[in-house]
Each structure stands twice: as C-alpha cells, then as structure tokens.
C-alpha cells in the first residue's frame, strides 16, 4: 500500500530553535497515526506541516505516490486535508452554523446568498456525529464551554469530508465522555478509509487508538512503530529514547532550610488525582517545580499566585501563613511576589527601549520615587552583577541575545524587594551557557532566602533546580518527588502524559 502523504527528511527552524531535524513520516489511508512527544519535541510543528500551515526548510513532500511541492494551506484544503487546531480556528461571535461552513461555501461569489437551510441539515448530521446533535446551532460559539467549542472545531473539519484529518491535541479540553466520543468518531473515519494524524501527549490515547506511532524527542525522530502499543512500551520510548539527554550538572543543593518552623512563603491547595488535595508549599530558600504538559494546570497556578487570575479567591492560598487572595499583580508585588511570565518577547521585554530602561521597569523604593530620573541606581553595576554581556546600557534591549535579555528580566526581579518568585519557563529558547548563568542567578535568589515556584516544561532543568517537583495532569497534582534525580525521569514522564492516570483507572476497572 502506498502512503497517501509522505514527509521525507523534513527540517524546520524557528530562529535559533530547531523544531524539527530530519524527520520522516508516512500517512496511510484508513490508519490512525499518532505523533507523541514531550513539550517542545516538535509534534505540533510536524502536525501543522502535514496541514500545509508550516513550510519546512528542507525535505520533500509526497502526495498519493508522487513527489509534489509543499502544499500551501489552500492546496492542502483542495487535496482533502482538514486540520483541527490546538488554538481553535473559530470566530467566537459567529453562530455554530456560520463557523462550521466558514470558508467552505460552495461559491466564492461574495454576493451569493448563503444556503442556510441546506447548511442547517448538513450541520445536524455533522454535529450528531460528535454528540452535539441537540445543540442550538444558532448560538454564538463563545457561549459554549471550552469542551464543546473543541467539538465544534472538530465538526468543522469533519464537515469538509477530509481524506486526511490532522488533529493537533484535540483532547486537552475535553471531558472523559467527550474524549470517548471523539475516539469513536476517529474509529469510524478510519473504517471509512480516512487517514488520521493525531498529535497528542496523552499516552493512554495512543495505546488505545494508534495503528502507527511516531515518537519525537527534541525535534528528532526517536522511532516510528507500526501496530498497537501498550502504555509501558510507549513510555519507555518517550523517556528512554535513542537520544541521550544533555548532561546537567547536579544541583549544588540550595541552602536547605532545616528550620521547619519558619512559615512557608506560600501554600496553595490543589486537587490530587486520587481525589484528595495536595498543598503546594514553598519555604524560604526552596525551589518548588511544577511539571506537566501544556494545559495541565501549572500555568493556572502561576497566574493565581502572581495575581493574574480574576477568580483567585476561589482557591485556598496562604502567603506567609496569611490567608490571602492575590487579585492583582500590584497586590502580588506588595506581598513580595515577583513574576517572570512566559513568552519573553510578548510579555517580558519592552523591545523598543534600552537595556537599562528594561532593567529598571520595576516598582521603585521610596527613596527612588523622589527622583525624576527614568532609571534608578547604577545600571552598569547591576548588569555586570547578573552577568549580562552588553555594549552600552543605553543600547536597545533587542541588541542582546535571548539569553542576555532573559538575564536582564531576572535582574529586574532581583533588584526588587521580594520574597517569592514565580518563574514560567525561565530558560525557554536560550543556549546552554546562558541557561547555566540563569540557574546560578536563581541559586543566588534562594541563597538570600527567597522562595521560587518554578513552572518549566524542561524536565532536566526542573530536576536540576527543584527541591521538590509536583507532577501535574489535567488540572490535578499527580505525585510529589522530593529531591528529584534523573532516575525519576521516566516516572515523571509517565505521570504527566496520564499514564499513571490510565493505570490507576485500569486497576479500578
């Protein structure tokens, strides 16, 4: 049998990050091909490449047995490819019906009257298939809960009657029942000869559905396996892998705080997978890591602690022993909580301003407030203390490398009077040397008695820095690892892809 779609030896870089290196994938009609890997392994890039939304730098593309130029999104659509996006492609104000047929009208004539009654009956059949048969198709999609929006997104792809369906992590927002339904639909499509590319990090789904599994790690192909796999087989390949993990210096253990009587800087209660609750505590001088895949809930905890969540009051949280709802970032800052958000370019730096202005973008002390100078203190002294390599403090921040920009952002926090840092992906997209520098800066913080809540999708980093790691899955805490080592890696990987979950369930059943 010839594959319907083949990507051969494709590579893709985004700036300095190599998202994919020399990956090949074959997609056959009537098969579910799962792409699995950890965060940043390149799964989504590969999925979007199949749908024509990412153009590879090198490699070749075969469709229906012939080598063809890479598809544009339009060509992909014309060839019968449909894509379900991780970040939905729905227009929130439009009705379900309008969304389902958006861009799929039989005519391109703008003045053509919409065939709403025909669309309505088509709507019914497609929505029936995903279990939304009784929904009011005239209501705008922004009034639906996230799970149902995801189902509408899936129906939108189904309405195009695709030959190849690419699903990019479609189950993140679905409840168990909805997920089961989706699996049923995928089974039917497979029986009808549709080729399905299923990008996921839920290992139990792979074990349940896959006819073929492609395991990715750091943008490279670990293995492409044919046939159904068990959870353990997949986890083994995910964690073990053919590619050795980069060597990390074992942590120079941070100043341990043996005095347990000292009040925790932070305590926040999170539901546990087994139904009980877990209090995530950060003591002075401690680094506590939250590890999980995208959408696991660790970002939400970070946003609650740093005062970004509007419903913070609904979570039981204590700061230095006081029950407090941190409802604004300003309040968080007054309590001594500093936040390093994810996404340096979007949420961190002021790209059009200088290095020193970026460094001094922090609340001023009382003494500084009296001064009119845009910056306070001696930027050169501070910058050299945090080890930034720069020419002139008045140069634009964008003249620095990503790693040095990141150090400036951490320096911004270091110069403030804080007690607790919430760090999201502190070393995302920076090189090894800069990573080590950032880690040293963080150790300096803990040395001063500050606590750190670390949200990182880099497992080696989380292990190297943390005194404790809480693994997260589906908004819940799975397990807690005290003084984690690289030996815990496979167990941690299994936790966050839901393998622990799946096994627990098997035992219950």
């Amino acid at each position: 049998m010839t594959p319907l779609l083949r990507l051969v030896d494709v590579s893709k870089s985004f700036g300095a990050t190599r998202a994919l290196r020399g990956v090949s994938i074959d997609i056959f009609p009537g098969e579910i091909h799962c792409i699995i890997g950890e965060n940043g392994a390149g799964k989504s890039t590969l999925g979007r490449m199949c749908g024509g939304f990412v153009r590879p730098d090198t490699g070749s593309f075969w469709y229906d047995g012939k080598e063809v130029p890479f598809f544009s999104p339009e060509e992909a659509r014309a060839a019968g490819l449909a894509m379900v996006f991780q970040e939905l492609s729905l227009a929130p104000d439009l009705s379900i019906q309008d969304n389902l047929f958006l861009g799929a009208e039989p005519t391109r004539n703008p003045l053509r009257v919409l065939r709403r009654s025909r669309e309505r009956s088509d709507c019914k059949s497609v929505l029936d298939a995903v279990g939304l048969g009784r929904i009011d198709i005239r209501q705008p999609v922004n009034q639906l809960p996230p799970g149902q929006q995801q189902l509408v997104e899936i129906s939108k792809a189904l309405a195009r009657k695709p030959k190849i369906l690419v699903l990019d992590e479609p189950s993140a927002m679905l409840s168990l029942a909805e997920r089961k339904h989706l699996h049923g639909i995928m089974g039917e499509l497979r029986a009808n000869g549709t080729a399905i590319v299923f990008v996921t990090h839920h290992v139990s789904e792979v074990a349940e559905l896959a006819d073929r599994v492609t395991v990715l790690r750091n943008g490279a192909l670990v293995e492409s396996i044919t046939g159904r796999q068990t959870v353990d087989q997949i986890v083994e390949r995910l964690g073990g892998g053919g590619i050795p993990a980069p060597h990390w210096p074992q942590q120079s253990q941070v100043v341990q705080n043996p005095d347990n009587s000292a009040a925790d800087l932070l305590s926040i209660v999170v539901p546990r997978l087994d139904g009980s609750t877990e209090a995530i505590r950060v003591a002075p001088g401690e680094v506590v890591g939250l590890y999980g895949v995208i959408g696991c809930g660790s970002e939400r905890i970070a946003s609650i602690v740093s005062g970004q969540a509007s419903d913070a009051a609904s979570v039981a949280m204590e700061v230095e022993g006081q029950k407090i709802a941190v409802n604004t970032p300003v309040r968080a800052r007054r309590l001594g909580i500093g936040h390093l958000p994810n996404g340096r370019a979007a949420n961190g730096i002021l790209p059009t301003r200088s290095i020193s202005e970026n460094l001094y973008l922090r609340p001023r002390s009382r003494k500084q407030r009296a001064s009119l100078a845009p910056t306070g203190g001696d930027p050169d002294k501070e910058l050299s203390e945090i080890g930034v390599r720069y020419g002139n403090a008045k140069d634009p921040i964008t003249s620095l490398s990503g790693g040095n920009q990141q150090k400036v952002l951490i320096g911004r926090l270091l110069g403030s009077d804080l007690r607790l840092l919430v760090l999201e992906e502190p070393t995302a997209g920076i090189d090894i040397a800069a990573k080590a520098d950032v880690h040293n800066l963080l150790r300096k913080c803990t040395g001063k008695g500050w606590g750190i809540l670390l949200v990182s999708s880099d497992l080696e980093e989380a292990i190297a820095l943390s005194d404790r790691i809480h693994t997260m899955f589906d908004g819940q805490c799975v397990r807690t690892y005290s003084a984690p080592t690289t030996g815990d890696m496979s167990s941690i990987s299994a936790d966050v892809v839901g393998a622990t979950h799946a096994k627990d369930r098997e035992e219950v059943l």
Partner: protein
Amino acid sequence: MSSQSSINQASPPKVRHLFGHVGYADLMLPLLILLLALVAVMIEPRFLSTNNLLNLLRQLTPLLIFAAAQGIVIMSGGLDLSQSSVLSVAGVVGVLVMPQLGIGGGVCVMIAVGAFCGLLSGFVAAATGASPLIVTLSALSITQAFALILANGVPIYDVPGEYTDLVGFTSLAGIPVMVLIGLAVLACCWVLLRFTVFGRYVYAMGSNYSAALHSGVDVRFYTVLVYVLSGTCAGIGAVVVTAWTSAAQPIAAPNLALQALASVVLGGVALKGGSGGMIHVVFGVVTLGMLSNVLNMIGVSAYFQTLAVGLVILLAVCLDRLRQRSARR
C-alpha cells in the same frame, strides 16, 4: 478544573430577532428613544405630525447612510475615518461633470468616485496590513485635498435645479426621495450582512481574523470589498447632500463621519468588531438624531447639545463594558 459539563444539554431559550441576536440590554436604546419622543410630544404636540417626522427622517438620512457603511466596516474589524472627505470629493467631481454628462451621469460619477476612493484605501489596508486608522486618516487628507483643489476651495453652486428638486425635495408616495435612498442603502446593507457570503466573512474577520484566515477566507479580498462598500456609500451620501444643499462643498459635512462612528458605537456595535447588526446602527442613528432634535425644541444651546451628545456616548460605552463583563461571567 476539567470540564465535565453535559454535552447534550439543550441551550436556554434566547430572545431572537429578525436582525440577529438582541438581548435584554439591547432594549435600553429603544426605551431611550421612546422617552425622548415622549418628552418631545409633551413639549411640542406637533412633534408627531407627519411633516415633522418626515423632516426628522430627512435630517437623519446622510447620517444613516454613513452609519450603515461605518457599521459594516467596524463589524469587519476596521474603521473608516475618510467618509466625509470622500463625500466631498465625490460631490465636487460629480457636480463638475454634470453639465457634460447630465444628471444621471453625474450621479454615477459621484458613486464611482466614492467606490474608487474606497478601493484605494482597502487595497492599501489589505496589501500592507497597516492599521485602518492610519490608512483612512491619510485617505481623509488626500481626498480632502483633491476636493479643495478641484473646487478651487469654494463651494460650487452650479447644480442643476432638476437634480436638487428630484433628489432633495420630491416625494414618492409621500416619502421624500432622499429618505427612500437612505432606506434603500440600509436595506442593502442589511441583506448583505444577513444573507450573503460577504456578511458571514465580515463578521468572521472582525471576530477572529486568524480564524477566518485559517478557515480559507480570502481576508485581503474581503477587506478591499468592505472599504469599497464604505466608499460607495460615501458616494451615495454625496448624491444626497449635494442635492439637499444645492451645492457641492469642498468641505461638506466634516463632522458626519465622526457622528456616524458615534452612533454606531452608541447603538451597541462593539468597536473590536465581529458583532452587532443594522438594527443597532438604526437605534444609534435615531437616538442621536432625536436627541439633537429634542434639545433644539427645548431650546438648549448648541454648545450644551454637543456636551449632551458626548455624555450619552460615554454612557453607552460604559453600558457596553458592563454588558460584556456580565456576558463573560
């Protein structure tokens, strides 16, 4: 934290309307309009006379035409600041060619000039991806300059009498032709928005541009179309205004575009795009029009009228924010 909501739940019933979704909050403006009418009748019983109402409609017509177009532009996620000056240049050019091409030719030229200006704005906005605010601001200056240059900076009073009589002062079945033109524009916009592919794409682009792009909508083409529509309406506005004032002013109705913007927002069309309908435009236009009509009757000075209009718009914006916040809960 996981979503365990039942997926087969039927949705709660909603107030529905031929014009789209109309919630309870949308009833605020009609109530305000009724209140204004009541005040007007109490002060001046002749307010409800056919004559006065037709006169009111006539006054509202240019604003209605502009607001209908501006509404569609805003729903698509754009903005058109150049409407007034496009009207001016279209009026000037149309009246200048009227002696050669006749009345029909002149009218066609006015509409064509408007459409062409919109085409240029739309093309620049779509091709460069620049903010429509800047693009139409520059279009405002450029078209204004052409209107001044072509008219030599003075109004052209050389407008054929038959033309001003026909468009400005004739009535068909008791309704002024001018008002009929305004209503026709409104009806066309309504049909476009509610029943055509164009309308669906306008809402989609305004609601989530990248979703529209990912769904295969030719967003650039439709951006151009939206501005062509707006320019065309400015051309139609030129037909009405030149006939009514019996002159082609190089700076005609300078505040009309901003008033149109105000009435669209007042009516409840979200500035970020993607929602609202012609019903909201109508509410906004009628409220704003009646407000100044009633204030005139009471004898409030023009200075205080401007103040009142500003306050009403501010109120509308606050209400809109409250509505959005409660909708998000």
